[in-house]
């Protein structure tokens, strides 16, 4: 699901076409919306060729997802904040603080892990509420508030940990970060070349595909019932088949290795949930309204301050979640955890098509942006480019290029008016 380049048939995201009852909509290729997915496909293609297919091997796919999972969790929260016209520079420090907090509870105090997890998420919510208060109700720019937060929560981390790492974590936390779904039904043979794969995962994958297809079909049927413009049949089929193929490919590959990682399940739930919220929930609409035109939103009765406040609370919770995953993955809560995570999350959102001025952006876009960076990271690693400056150079250029493309396409759209 995460890798699917198309969301599940969300109403109203497609570009405008001529009237519905006249003809199926002209395929008005929206380069800005689809450019990110094309870029993603090209990135994968290039590195698949360069690594002679190793990139897409079962074990490597699993690695990419597990290694990037916490950045993707952060990117979901970050893109919402960016849509609303703000920024959060503190997430890296919050990741560290939340990891430290969880470690003290689970390792030093021996609290049961579910209690510790919930307490950690609440801890994140409180941090988010602190920052949300200053941004929304006190009126300090988010850049400043979260820059201060970056220092404050790093200090909190050192204070909690006393300048040393705490570990190891309970098995459950490590499983969340590193573990895989157990096979409930055993393996099935997929022939000589593919070998065995976990049957349960394959069935779940098929169910997910069926669900996606059904959701797309239902949305299309509803649009036709309301005589709205719909994609021509071939494009509709493409939008059903391509994600289905990608999901099945991913699931089968993972099922051939050590099965689907738990973090992928978590991510899939988050992506579907947050996509629904941004596209269909009143709260989601209000985020776009606030970022698109703050004054107009205020005068339309949107409780602007409350929207911004809750966005930061949400970011705090997601940062805490990312903190748990990261600490569980390292099996250690260290004082330097999460360094520069904020930059990766922000870059993911912008590569994924979020606009610097706010009002524009998508959760799926941010995830794709994060995955592009993950593939570059991983692919370059496979090719032997292990020096950090090489990866940084490429990531920097990709970020600049993505935003340059955004600015260019806007200027072109304005000129064509």
């Amino acid at each position, binding site marked *: 699901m995460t890798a699917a380049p198309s969301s599940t048939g969300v109403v109203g995201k497609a570009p405008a076409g001529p009237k*519905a009852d006249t003809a199926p909509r002209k395929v008005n290729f929206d380069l800005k919306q689809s450019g990110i997915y094309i870029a993603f496909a090209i990135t994968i293609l290039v590195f698949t060729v360069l690594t002679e297919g190793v990139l897409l091997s079962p074990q490597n796919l699993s690695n990419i997802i597990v290694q990037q999972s916490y950045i993707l969790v952060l990117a979901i929260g970050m893109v919402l904040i960016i849509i609303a016209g703000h920024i959060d520079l503190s997430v890296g420090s919050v990741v560290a603080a939340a990891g430290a907090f969880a470690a003290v509870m689970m390792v030093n105090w021996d609290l049961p892990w579910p209690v510790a997890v919930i307490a950690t998420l609440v801890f994140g919510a409180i941090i988010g509420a602190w920052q949300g208060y200053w941004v929304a109700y006190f009126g300090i720019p988010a850049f400043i508030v979260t820059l201060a937060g970056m220092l404050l929560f790093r200090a909190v981390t050192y204070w909690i940990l006393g300048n040393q790492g705490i570990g190891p974590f309970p098995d459950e936390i490590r499983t969340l970060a590193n573990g895989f779904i157990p096979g409930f039904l055993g393996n099935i043979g997929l022939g000589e070349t593919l070998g065995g794969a976990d049957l349960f995962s394959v069935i779940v994958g098929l169910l997910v595909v069926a669900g996606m297809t059904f959701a797309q079909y239902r949305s299309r049927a509803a*649009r036709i019932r309301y005589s*709205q413009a719909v994609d021509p049949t071939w494009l509709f089929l493409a939008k059903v088949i391509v994600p289905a193929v990608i999901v099945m490919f991913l699931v089968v590959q993972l099922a051939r290795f050590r099965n689907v990682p738990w973090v992928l399940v978590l991510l899939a739930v988050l992506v579907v949930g947050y996509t629904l919220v941004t596209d*269909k*929930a009143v709260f989601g609409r209000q985020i776009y309204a606030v970022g*698109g*035109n703050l*004054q107009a939103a205020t005068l339309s009765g949107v409780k602007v301050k409350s929207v911004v406040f809750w966005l930061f609370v949400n970011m705090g919770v997601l940062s805490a979640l990312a903190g748990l995953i990261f600490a569980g993955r390292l099996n250690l809560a260290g004082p330097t955890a999460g360094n520069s995570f904020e930059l990766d999350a922000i870059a993911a959102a912008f590569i994924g098509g979020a*606009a610097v001025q706010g009002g524009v952006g998508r959760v799926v876009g941010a995830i794709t942006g994060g995955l592009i960076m993950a593939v570059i990271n991983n692919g370059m690693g496979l090719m032997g480019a292990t020096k950090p400056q090489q990866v940084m150079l490429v990531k920097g250029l990709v970020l600049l290029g993505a935003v340059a493309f955004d600015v260019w396409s806007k200027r072109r759209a304005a000129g064509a008016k």
Partner: protein
Amino acid sequence: MSDTILRMQGITKTFPGVKALQDVNLDVRRGEIHSICGENGAGKSTLMKVLSGVYPHGTYEGEIEFEGEACRFSGIRDSEHRGIVIIHQELALASNLSIAENIFLGNEQATRGWIDWNKTNAAADALLRRVGLRESAVTPVLDLGVGKQQLVEIAKALSKEVKLLILDEPTAALNDEDSAHLLDLLRGLRDEGITCVIISHKLNEVMGISDRVTILRDGKTIWTQDTADLTEEKIISGMVGRDMEHRYPEHTPTIGDEVLRIEDWTVHSPTQPDRALVRNANLTLRRGEIVGLAGLMGAGRTELAMSVFGRSYGVNISGRLFKEGREIRTRTVREAIDHGIAYATEDRKRYGLNLIEDIKRNISAAALDRLAKGGWVDGNEEFKVADEFRASMNIKAPSVESVVGKLSGGNQQKVVLSKWILTDPDVLILDEPTRGIDVGAKYEIYTIINRLADEGKAVLVISSELPELLGICDRIYTLSAGRITGEVPRAEATQESLMTLMTKEVQEVAP
């Protein structure tokens, strides 16, 4: 007679998919005030952008001749160098800089790279005297009202030794007093030999100030005539291509019970909390009635409306509100909307619309809860509702999924009105509902306003154009320096009587 200073011949300008100008000709005589009229989208601004080099030579076809020489401007600096200065509708001043800094922005009075502030400010003061602006040159521009900022723009143009001054809708945002001052200034400049080209929607001004008028329609020149031979009706028929006998639709009101009563309403300035902008105002609105609120700029019209609409403007607000006889509170915009009050702003681009979103999401913005169940929006229902508005309001767009920022002013205004109608209000406050809208679309807006009144809503129209208030309102309140100075039924109101009331309090208060 006088010689020709500017000749534009066969100008054709094409944008992808649209021919904005088609073989346009324009002759301007030295020392005249020449008005260009046309509906929105007729190509007026495009023509001026061609002239001033915003669209450089080579991006259009045709010839420009200025003072007998062919011109090929590659940018706005070229045209300014020749003495052609354009003042855009949206003023281009840096509001945090002083008047003097703005006047000489890009043209700094400097010796060897160091600015000579004495020279700068003295020169600026001289220019301010010339345009009749009694402000110090070191005053920051943000402390000035729109009218004064317009004068700063003109002073800036004069500093460049302008020969041909182009003004795009110079009085659109000005009140009558400031407009009159500006027009007087332009007459003065004409006497000094400066030629002016004015783009304007205000036909009385066009008639009052210009020597000749050129009409553009659909990117083509229709005609150029001496103003002496013209009437407003003739200009309108040229602009719309048809005779407009009635600029205001006929309407017989059915007036019902009182819906909203505002009592003893007082609002203070957010920047100077001891200064009252609205003082002890009393207003009554009734079902089916269109009520006008007339006042000069700064009289407190918008301040009154916005403070009633969820205290979205002003501080230390006092007074009482009664909805159908029961006292209500509107402490937030949400509460105001829930009490059936809607306010369509005078500045739709800044305060009314999310320009990067599509039509349907703008229409639903204030009434999402009506389209949602348990916090989830029904996207199909939203589409349906928006599409019904597209049909009933005649919003010209290929689909309700078109981006609002690309619509014309009139269609944007229809989106704003749709948005508020969807909240199902009992009281609609429309602040300058036809500002920046062409004549044809204005008529449509008036028809919509009448329809709303017929549905039993109370409508309060705030407008700077007295003919408009006289044309559509059943009753008109006048506001002067924050006080209600009169309440006149339409039958008894004239422009003169309203203007007297609108300036009344000021004269009494003045020592």
